[in-house]
């Protein structure tokens, strides 16, 4: 499952969706907004997405995990809009029979998301605002 939403993410709800009594391992990754970037205090973050393409790219990540690791209990959720410090911008929840594949798949999901999914983060500092990875 995938979800892109402006609402606060509920990691417990998302984790419960991937639980499965045939599985022995559940991993939940939370990406949270950090108070500092390169020692500069962040006031606020704002996320924007090209929603239909981002949804498609997230679905591709899920499909690749299914094929590569035979893992079918996957939930990736990304928040958009204003996100306060300490709040959750990303949840990746995966459960599988054994933990090694769950860890590999979870890291693959995050790494691939950060490379391919059209979502952008703007950091607001005291004196300026900047898109992350601005060329």
């Amino acid at each position: 499952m995938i979800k892109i939403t402006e609402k606060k993410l509920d990691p417990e709800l998302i984790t419960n969706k991937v639980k499965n009594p045939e599985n022995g391992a559940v991993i939940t990754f939370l990406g949270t907004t950090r108070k500092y970037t390169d020692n500069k205090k962040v006031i606020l973050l704002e996320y924007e997405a090209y929603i239909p393409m981002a949804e498609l790219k997230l679905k591709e990540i899920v499909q690749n995990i299914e094929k590569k690791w035979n893992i079918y209990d996957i939930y990736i959720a990304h928040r958009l809009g204003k996100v306060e410090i300490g709040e959750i911008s990303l949840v990746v929840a995966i459960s599988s029979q054994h933990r090694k594949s769950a860890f590999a798949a979870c890291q693959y999901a995050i790494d691939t998301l950060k490379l391919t999914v059209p979502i952008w983060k703007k950091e607001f500092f005291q004196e300026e605002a900047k898109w992350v990875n601005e060329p």
Partner: protein
Amino acid sequence: MLIKIKFFALYKEKAKTKDTVVEIPNNSTIQDLCDLLIENYPNLSKFKNNIIFAVNYEYQDNTYILSDNDEIALIPPVSGG
């Protein structure tokens, strides 16, 4: 032919618009479109070698030949997560 263009994040701020429609000759490539957009939005010119294009939600390189009614997006470096 007519091509729908979407701008996001940094490029949206630079172009000062989130979308537009441009007319371009049949069989134009993404590179041709890129050159046209840089002409129309000179603020984007400093990014001309960085802009990644998506056509109908798939990344495509600059040799890709456009079709009528394609939806093109200019994709700044992504930073989700």
